[in-house]
């Protein structure tokens, strides 16, 4: 053996087992970061519904979320190697999704300012009934008026149910900043939906049991 003149390092890692689908987060992260396609497949099965839902609920259910979904996973897989052993995968994936969403929201805002992207219409929401489509298009027009941080705070809290500490962590913000963003968003959305005739009518009908 010829001694190496530089510091050296070697790692022994387990072969991915057939039970990788049941593996804990640390094992799965280690296997995925070593390039095991089976681990990637398990990650996709485990987290793509969550990520797609976050993308759709934050941006609006458009076809473009599939491309962003891919971007979230590619980023996450690149960053997995640096994930601490004790870290949990779900908050990590949520945080990566939030970063991708933040960039996309800022780009969308710029597109709207440049008139490259029009406002929402009810036909954008093809999977719902007409009344719900109208309510959703009204709501997403309102959300489009928020800045990226406020919109993210709002959607993560109200649509995904994150606690304020989880929200702050996902947005890489202090607790007080997260609270401020959420309070700002809550006030604006509350005021806007109250003024919006279509959404008000839908909500009233729903509360009376008339909505589909």
């Amino acid at each position, binding site marked *: *053996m*010829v*001694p*190496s003149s*530089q*510091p*050296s*390092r*070697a*790692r*022994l*890692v*387990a*072969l991915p*087992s057939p039970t990788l689908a049941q593996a804990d987060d640390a094992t799965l992260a*280690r296997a995925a970061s*070593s*390039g095991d*396609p089976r681990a*990637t*497949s398990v990650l*996709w*099965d485990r987290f*793509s*519904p*969550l*990520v*797609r*839902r976050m993308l*759709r*609920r934050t941006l609006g*259910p458009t076809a473009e979320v*599939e491309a962003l*979904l*891919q971007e979230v*996973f*590619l980023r996450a897989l*690149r960053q997995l190697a640096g994930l601490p*052993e004790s870290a949990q995968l779900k908050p990590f994936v949520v945080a990566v999704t939030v970063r991708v969403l933040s960039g996309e929201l800022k780009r969308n805002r710029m597109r709207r300012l440049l008139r490259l992207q029009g406002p929402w219409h009810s036909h954008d*929401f093809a*999977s719902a009934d007409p009344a*719900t489509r109208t*309510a*959703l298009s009204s*709501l997403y027009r309102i959300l489009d008026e928020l800045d990226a941080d406020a919109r993210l705070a709002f959607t993560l809290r*109200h*649509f995904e149910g994150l606690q304020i500490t989880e929200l702050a962590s996902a947005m890489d913000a202090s607790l007080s900043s997260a609270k401020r963003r959420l309070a700002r968003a*809550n006030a604006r*959305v*509350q005021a806007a*939906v*109250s003024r*919006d005739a279509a*959404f*008000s009518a839908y*909500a*009233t009908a*729903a*509360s009376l049991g008339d*909505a589909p």
Partner: protein
Amino acid sequence: MSFGESDSPTLADVEAVVRENVSGHVDGDRHEQGKQRLLAALRHRRPGVARQARRVVLIAAALGALAGGGAYAWKQHSGTRLTYDVAGGLLSDSGYVRSSGASGARLTFSDGSRVDLQDGARARIAAVDAHGARLAIENGHAALNVAHLPRAAWYVDAGPFVIQVTGTQFDVDWSSYDDTLSVDLHEGSLVVSGPPAPTGVLLRAGQRLTAHEGRLSIEALEQAVQVAESPLLDPPLPEADPALADPALAEALPSPSAEPPAATAHF
């Protein structure tokens, strides 16, 4: 659907309309298509080259011929597959290697890395790329000296274990007859994971790891050699220490120079 009772819509109404109508579910075909798209993207991604590095190369190329030439040379280097020679052994077309003489076989790679297969050892070169190779030890003893180069990525399969190497010296002994793995680490450090230790065990230079029948033991290499050289000694393994399953605790083991005690853990 549960909406607020007041005339004016509330934030609960907003939550309800989105939660009940916007989900992340897609049908099975679409789910599978997305997965295959991701796997294809990962296969076509250049290994080991970070996005930031690619940006730097592109900017450098745009700035001038000198930087461009450097980037070109770098890319050429990164894309050249390692070559290797076999001395003292037979190499089949499928990459199967076995020694042909009593002195064993030596694999010498173009990056300076070497693998010495002891007489009787069998191995297979499963893959070779620009940054390393994947070698499967089917049975017997191999001594590896992997050149420490940037982005070096070597893998040695030994039964249910994989040894990921970036540059170090170590001996691997894998017995396919009794499923016993032995790793003697001469330089650097090792994290051992596998069926006996799913959470991983960290080894330091000068230590020996042995895995057999669900038991994993770590001892100072110097001590292990002394034991092996004494024909009268056949010491029993010490009591189990499950703490060794924790890599952080395993890392806290004293170095061989501090005469660490032998330790055994059951998994």
